[in-house]
């Protein structure tokens, strides 16, 4: 059974204080690993897809990396508008539904 574990559950940062969010996964043949951002009361918004170990993607202050067992979402010099819940999900081989982690709730304080 595919599983995704995200840590920490919640993270509080000062503005400008860089950090990383972790996503550990077990999957029978990784088709893709996905990162989403979710603001309160809204649907998740797509950030990145990673397909193979060693792959990295960047968008503004966010950088996602992937190994064979985990993914990291690195946040460099965060701003208060980066406050959100960040969700990680995996898709295994074939046309299977995504399996989500429970998310990391990030708060960035000015």
């Amino acid at each position: 059974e595919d599983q995704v574990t995200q840590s920490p559950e919640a993270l509080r940062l000062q503005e400008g204080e860089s950090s990383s969010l972790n996503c550990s996964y077990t999957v029978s043949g990784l088709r893709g690993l996905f990162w989403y951002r979710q603001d309160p009361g809204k649907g998740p918004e797509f950030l990145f897809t990673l397909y193979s170990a060693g792959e990295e993607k960047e968008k503004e202050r966010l950088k996602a990396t992937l190994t064979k067992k985990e993914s990291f979402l690195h946040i460099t010099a965060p701003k208060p508008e980066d406050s959100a819940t960040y969700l990680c999900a995996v898709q295994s081989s074939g046309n299977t539904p995504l399996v989500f982690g429970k998310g990391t709730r990030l708060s960035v304080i000015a």
Partner: protein
Amino acid sequence: DVKVTQSSRYLVKRTGEKVFLECVQDMDHENMFWYRQDPGLGLRLIYFSYDVKMKEKGDIPEGYSVSREKKERFSLILESASTNQTSMYLCASSPRYGYTFGSGTRLTVV
């Protein structure tokens, strides 16, 4: 811009009512999904569909049914609403890999 539209942002229904949650996508995606999201439990898959008139049970289908008469529309039906179905409901569509989510429906059953 691609869109997944959920018909209601907020809904209040009485126990025992039959409730319809509508989801429409304009991306010609074959795959559509319904999740519910609860604090501490993350996103849980209710039902999904890979084609018109086709449906598959997810992890928590009890108390729900779905309908997909047209490719662009996927409806979630609560046959007899109960208070434990109070939740945030999220619809998503996908071409094959990755999802686009709707903005969610916050359902309260009283």
